[in-house]
């Protein structure tokens, strides 16, 4: 079923009819004939197709980078889509100038994606610093430059913007006057308002069987069939109050993105250690789209959020004929199978707020540290009372057909004293609980050794002096 679409692309209003599940990149390149956004991999791993999606929040525009290749076009309804073509108006902008000066573009195929990501960074950060700007490029790869020239270009842009600071104009005005973005950006809030589109209502098609949240895996695995399928786009649901606290329970809507989870004041307050590891999850554009619910339902044995939620002993609230609750560590029944009946949908994720003094740690090893899928990951939640483990939850990914909650290891650890011998024995139990297979992410022997070491790493991080190196080898 086609869907009516009304949005602003760069400075132009677009009114059209589309198959809502079609890849946004295909729509941009083929329907709009804007070819600056490139297809490099079609799986959100290169960033050559990066675009900005702008939404009105309290009369202010919030821009986020996304991989257009794996985003369904229907989700653009009522928003501002910015492609590379919309970032300079007649003359190059400052970031583009700095790239040219530093030779930060060689073959040029990846370059539009880098420029878009950086413009996104400057749009959403009033006080830009080099390290953060570089972090915002974790979803872009360049095969030519070696990145040094890119770092230098960014540095120059930041220095330029700082030197341009003067009157206390609004950030977006400063970006316009410093030639970081074209002037038309200033009119976008008003123009979006005038579209009067109810984003939550106008994109949902409740009758369609195929539900799409962020689509960051669905559009990688099955874009050919989704392109013309009837789809129910739920990404825009629950715009407000995705994360709430009630009676010591933190309630997280399944449509919460990893970015929203990371930025949530509630999570920062109660689970600060988690937010410190979230940079290991996908890339910024992936985190801007990937939902916690999607991560759980996708049922990948190496899902990072699922690993974390297992260690937080999360409960799932499932909506269907009736509303049911099931513990995440009892949810999976086998490889990509789970206790979810047809017609049921994951609605909420509940976690108990951690005890005072509870410790948390997430470990992930992959071929490359940033933007990679884990070979093995593991999370631990630990409460210590006078050197004795009073509560513990432990998970391991990539070592079984499902994201694993290490029941036996947890049983063993409970009530034990924190000591090297305890951890060593725990690791032995863990190795009996897992069944890793050899694949493109490593041999089974490697995964076993890695998980053993990650257990030690958990404790080494929480109790720096506890591990005796000589006994590990």
């Amino acid at each position, binding site marked *: 079923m086609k869907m009516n679409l009304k949005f602003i692309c760069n400075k132009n209003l677009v009114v059209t009819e589309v198959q809502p599940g079609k890849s946004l990149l295909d729509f941009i390149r083929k329907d709009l004939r804007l070819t600056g956004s490139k297809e490099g991999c079609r799986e959100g791993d290169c960033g050559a197709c990066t675009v900005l999606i702008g939404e009105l929040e309290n009369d202010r525009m919030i821009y986020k980078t996304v991989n257009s290749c794996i985003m369904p076009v229907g989700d653009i309804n009522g928003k501002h889509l910015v492609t590379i073509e919309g970032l300079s108006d007649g003359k190059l902008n400052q970031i583009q100038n700095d790239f040219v000066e530093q030779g930060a573009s060689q073959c040029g195929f990846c370059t539009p994606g880098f420029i878009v990501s950086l413009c996104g960074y400057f749009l959403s950060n009033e006080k830009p610093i080099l390290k953060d700007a570089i972090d915002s490029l974790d979803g872009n790869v360049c095969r030519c430059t070696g*990145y040094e020239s890119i770092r230098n270009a960014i540095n120059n842009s930041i220095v330029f913007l700082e030197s341009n600071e003067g009157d206390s104009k609004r950030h977006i005005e400063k970006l316009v006057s410093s030639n970081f973005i074209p002037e038309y950006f200033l009119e976008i809030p008003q123009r979006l308002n005038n579209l009067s589109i109810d984003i939550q209502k106008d994109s949902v098609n409740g009758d369609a069987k195929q539900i799409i949240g962020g689509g960051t895996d669905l559009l990688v695995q099955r874009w050919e069939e989704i392109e013309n399928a009837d789809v129910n786009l739920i990404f825009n649901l629950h715009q407000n109050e995705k994360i709430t606290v009630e009676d010591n329970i933190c309630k997280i809507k399944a449509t919460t993105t990893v970015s929203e989870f990371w930025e949530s004041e509630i999570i920062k307050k109660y689970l600060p250690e988690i937010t410190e590891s979230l940079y290991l999850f996908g890339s910024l554009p992936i985190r801007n789209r990937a939902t916690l619910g999607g991560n759980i339902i996708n049922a990948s044995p190496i899902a990072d959020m699922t690993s974390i939620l297992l260690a937080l002993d999360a409960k799932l609230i499932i909506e269907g004929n009736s509303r049911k609750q099931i513990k995440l560590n009892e949810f999976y029944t086998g490889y990509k199978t789970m206790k979810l009946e047809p017609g049921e949908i994951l609605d909420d994720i509940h976690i108990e707020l951690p005890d005072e003094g509870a410790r948390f740690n997430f470990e992930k090893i992959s071929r490359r540290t940033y933007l990679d899928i884990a070979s093995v990951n593991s999370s631990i939640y630990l409460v210590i009372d006078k050197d004795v483990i009073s509560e513990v939850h432990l998970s391991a990914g990539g070592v079984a057909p499902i994201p694993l909650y290490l029941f036996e290891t947890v049983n063993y650890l409970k009530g034990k004293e924190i000591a090297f011998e305890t951890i060593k024995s725990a690791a032995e139990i863990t190795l009996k609980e897992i069944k890793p297979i050899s694949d493109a992410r490593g041999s089974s022997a490697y995964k076993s050794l890695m998980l053993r070491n990650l257990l030690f790493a958990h404790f080494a991080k929480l109790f720096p002096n506890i591990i005796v190196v000589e006994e590990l080898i």
Partner: protein
Amino acid sequence: MKYYDTTQHVAGKSQFIDDITVPEGTLYAAIFYSPIAKGKIIKLNIEEAKNYSGVKAVFTHQDIEGANQIGGIVQDEELLASHEVDFVGQPIAIVVANDYLTAKNAAKKNQIEIEEETPILDPREAQRKGELIVQPMIFELGSTETVWDECNIIVEGIAESGAQEHLYLETQGAIAIPTEGGGLKIISSTQSPTAVQRVTANVLNMPMHKIEVDVMRLGGGFGGKEDQATPYAAMVGLAAHKLGKPVKMVLPRQEDMRITGKRHPYSSDFKIGLSKDLKILAYEASYYQNAGAAADLSPAVLQRTMTHATNSYFIPNVKATGYSCRTNLPPFTAFRGFGGPQGMFVIESAIHSAAKKLGVDPFEIQKKNLLRSGDEFPYSQIVEHGNAVKCWKHLEEKINLNEIKNGIAEFNSKSKFIKKGFALMPICFGISFTSKFMNQAGALVNIYQDGSIGISTAAIEMGQGVNTKIRNVAEKIFSIDISKIKIETTNTTRIPNTSPTAASSGADLNGKATELACVKLFDRLIDFAKNELRCREDSKIEIVNENIIVDGVQSELNWNELIQRAYFNRINLSAQAHFATPEIHFDTKKNKGKPFAYHSYGTGLIEVSVDCLRGTYEIDSVQVVHDFGKSINKVIDKGQAEGAIIQGIAWMTIEEILYDEKGKLMTDALSTYKIPGIHFTPKEFDVKFLENTENPFAVFGSKAIGEPPLMYGIAAYFAIRNAMESFNPNMNAEYKAPMTNERVLMALFNRNL
């Protein structure tokens, strides 16, 4: 407009194959390829695909009127498999439809029955079974046999390096458009337009002049589009010719990764002998090159391994033996360095293992044996203008090796799990194609009446900045504003018989051809100006910043007026020139001669940190002193060096190609094959230009830069080992690259892989 291409790139205005507006009625092609690594084709059924809604045609080998052959050096590779398949991904049929998705879905409807045979995946097994692409190569200097007895120590071992995916961001692709008179215009993402033209003409059984190949730019090449862009162009050529309609094909990433060749994996034996004072007296190596299922460029790649067997060292007695081994993997192909890096990894492993046995630092041996002018390479060329020692010294002036060594030891003694390490890497890389005939290039320079200039050459712009360098050459000669100079597409009707843009030689060869053509025009214009301005015979006429200067005095003419008057006076404002590298020669029977116009030198230092609990690592610092000659464009040259270094480090560390036991690629997507992201780049990255150096053998004293710096990356491998040894001095690590997180952890904890 300092860098025309970059100015377009940053605005998203540069056009690649998939961005070009195609003619109405263009059809799209998808490939049906072999799911099996080796076997006989019993039956192929294309009926269902043919009848799929929206499909226009399905082509197989039976539709080829000319030769079903794409082999270059050896004629051993079919465009579409006829009776046998030799690797997973080998093209069998082409499905053409109204749109790409239809073609792709229809391609899946093809049915094939193959009598499966056991594939050979290991080059040593292939060699044992006599499966060689060409006769073994032997390079010899002195006599190793007679000096082993004189050596203080002798070490033997095995060194292996893995494949590497080019991962050009723009995948392979081409568009073929039928032209009047039964010809074709092919727009291709190729480093070798003439190869596309020759092979397509051969496949279609038509003369080459009927096929025009045009290339605007590539979204990266790295060697992957030297020989292997050709089949896709030939396939759309075949389909367009048969159907009389334009046909386009751009490979999806996963297919590109599955069916195209990569850097050759090598397994090698080494034996090295040293004197008491650390002089290398003798070195023997046997290289088993995994060539894949067809020759492609493998013999030439092996030749470069042989010529780079001793890297930057003088070794008086050398014996190198090379086997190009036929296996059932997609034919491996050119990749930046072209066999050189593989050869250098072996000698560096040999030096490392000798150093370990002697209890000295590897850099002591490296330093002691650096090449000097007058030394002889194993292929008899004599070192001229040798800068190996100069670069090393320059680096040592910048950094104190002992301080680094002691600082690391101090850090490691205090750190439980994080250990630091370092290694040095001198490089010496020969510049020229080893096939003499390829060292030629052409340029056509047209000056238009308004004073603007269009330059065509054989060079392909693929990000390496060759177009900018060629503009710089013309800019210097004419002394006019660079905005007046445009580089045209590379086109076989303007420049015939192009050598591929490869071997780092693009700017050397085409820059020189451009220089020759520009000088022809310049001389013509100066003669004309002399006449026009009625100067004395011995007057000195110059063009300075677009002004015509006579004996130091500004004349009435500026550039634009000069050109206009020249045109009205019927002066030929177009010049063509051809350049062929002088003096080079090589006898492939004796493996002796002077194959290289000159050599590039440099020294690099890499420092790393290894997390020994997790088996992960970071590159802390890369410091290099490189001999760029007199750089034409420092921004471009530095960018080439940095990019090559990261690619080299990644080849040695995180980039791993894995095939399963049936020859199917396991790492076939960006989610399983990881190239460096911005966080992988070393925290400190310093590439210094060697001072006071020039090169009489290339345009304006410059030096080729595309490939040589890649080999500094080898230091990353040994730096990681160096760090690992301080965590576990008894670890038993083999010389196997890439040093992935997996290899690190397994070695640190003495597990077998």
